[in-house]
């Protein structure tokens, strides 16, 4: 089922949680709402689920107006951040809940409920936990039960609020892949909220980057990563590997003749910087401050003037360079992204070609 969001706005007191949000989610797509906490992503998800009512705008399900539908009637599966499993019910009863509360006419027989629940538990690979209680499960297991419970009512839309937020890294990675597979098998539309860009980029078909109640960019993971629409997206999608170069100072140095240059900011990812031990044309001089080998990459901190520049090198490259703290080096960016007013953009790009 497709979801359309038209001009949704929501305020809590004087705090604007959502401001004129427009978003189309075609059937079968897995969409990530990505942004820092307080950006409005969870509120948007809850509005889609019917748990929060918008002040303005409308929500359409499969082209039909759904803004006034009660949460109960929307046929959405909602997975809560902290799972919200019914703590006094066994895993089996948790999953069976949605079937048991159906009106008598539609309610499946006990045998059918049993079959369906065990199927779902099989799907999430936890059928051996049917008699346990939520408190006896690990976080990842709780999460999968919450998912099975949401799927039991055969929702047309699956909504997940920070589905992996409370899990540790290893489980999180595994569940991510698993969610992707599950989504593809179920042929439903799914929306999940996350503040983890890696998660969004890995799992989603499309990523909606949000900030301060607005959508900053909508696009495929590749689009938003390699072609960010705003400085915010650029910085937010950088993960720890991001290095945002506040190059103003450096700028003035190089592109002194460009009068407008001071108002622009350029962004360079740390892995897009080349280092050489010898002076090179149009490269900037710096001093190596620290060298941190971190797993497969080596992070190098350079001091350029008063500014710290972060660079990420592959292990091979680092071995070839053999950097030590205190060494003078020359670096130059391979790829630069500049945001600013139109005039500045042109000149800045020119300037940074070195």
């Amino acid at each position, binding site marked *: 089922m497709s979801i359309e969001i038209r001009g949704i706005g929501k305020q809590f007191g004087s705090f604007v949680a959502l401001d004129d949000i427009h978003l189309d989610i075609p059937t079968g797509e897995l969409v990530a709402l990505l942004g820092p906490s307080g950006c409005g992503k969870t509120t948007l998800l809850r509005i889609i689920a019917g748990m929060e009512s918008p002040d303005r705008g409308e929500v359409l399900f499969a082209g039909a107006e759904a*803004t*006034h539908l*009660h949460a109960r009637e929307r046929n959405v599966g909602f997975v809560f951040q902290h799972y919200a499993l019914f703590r006094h019910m066994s895993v089996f009863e948790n999953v069976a809940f949605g079937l048991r509360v159906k009106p008598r006419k539609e309610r499946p027989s006990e045998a059918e409920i049993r079959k369906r629940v065990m199927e779902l538990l099989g799907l999430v690979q936890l059928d051996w936990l049917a008699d346990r209680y939520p408190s006896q499960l690990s976080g990842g297991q709780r999460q999968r039960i919450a998912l099975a419970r949401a799927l039991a009512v055969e929702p047309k839309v699956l909504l997940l609020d920070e589905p992996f937020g409370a899990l540790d890294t290893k489980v999180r990675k595994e569940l991510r892949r698993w969610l992707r597979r599950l989504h593809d098998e179920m042929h439903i539309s799914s929306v999940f909220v996350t503040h983890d860009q890696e998660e969004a980029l890995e799992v989603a078909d499309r990523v909606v980057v949000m900030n301060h109640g607005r959508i900053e960019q909508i696009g495929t993971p590749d689009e938003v990563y390699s072609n960010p629409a705003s400085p915010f997206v650029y910085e937010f999608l950088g993960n720890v590997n991001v290095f945002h170069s506040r190059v103003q100072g450096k700028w003035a140095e190089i592109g002194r003749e460009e009068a407008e240059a001071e108002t622009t900011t350029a962004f360079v990812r740390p892995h897009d910087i080349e280092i050489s031990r010898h002076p090179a044309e149009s490269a900037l001089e710096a001093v190596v401050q620290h060298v941190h080998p971190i797993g497969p990459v080596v992070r190098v901190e350079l001091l350029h003037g008063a500014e710290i520049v972060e660079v990420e090198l592959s292990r091979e490259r680092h071995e070839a360079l053999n950097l030590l703290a205190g060494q003078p080096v020359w670096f130059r960016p391979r790829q630069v992204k500049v945001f600013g007013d139109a005039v500045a953009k042109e000149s800045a790009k020119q300037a940074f070609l070195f």
Partner: protein
Amino acid sequence: MSAPHSPPRVLPGLGLGLGYALVYLSLIVLIPLGALILKSSELGLHGILDIATGERALAALRVTFGASLAAAAINGVFGLIVAWMLVRYDFPGKRLVDSLVDLPFALPTAVAGITLATLYAGNGWIGRWLEPLGLKVAYTPLGIVVALTFIGLPFVVRTLQPVIEDIEPEVEEAAATLGASRWQTFVRILFPAIFPALLTGFSLAFARALGEYGSVIFIAGNLPLVSEITPLLIISKLEQYDLLGATALAVVMLAISFVLLLAINLLQWWAANRHRGSVVEGARP
């Protein structure tokens, strides 16, 4: 609030729940208390004060306040010791003793009253040891203090226990590593942490004692001007069909209760927020 045609709230029952709560609150609590205010308005402020400052009424208030304060103070001291002991020390039968602390909540006040009166009477288990020492407890104001101490005890202990439990041992260990003696640690670190709760427990015990009737009347002797408490004076005015007199005293008691309730709420608010202000400010973006 919400747009004119928004979907209903997700969770049902606000109207039903709040509606019932408000109607019931009004019927059982607010309207009856309103009747008291209404009746007292027949007297006016002057009339109320005239009755409340009559010789017998004033003496009763003095006895009530004095005994309540004394009992709350006793509970403050011993309640602190009991709470400390129950949280920090181990001894056989601790769980039993811990449950027993709630006895004054569970035991009907009349039972407490006749029992204490019997215990502290001249031939009672305790009275027979105290009387030769010249200490008459039963049928004197001292008896009132005993009864009020009994009923107020759990308030202090139960308010203090969770607070003492919440003190992190690391804090005390830090004090110890900085060279503080155990006594210095208690005075400078622990007591300030406990103090608001102690004050709250004291006020709760005090508030409860002011209105107490059942446990007191059996042991008090109820001599006008000497050992007559205000609640009893209200009843004796009622029995003489002096409805206005009873109302006046009741309004005074009610006003005092309100002030105390307010003070306790403020106290708890203060205890919860006293170290928080600056942090909250700093955390704001």
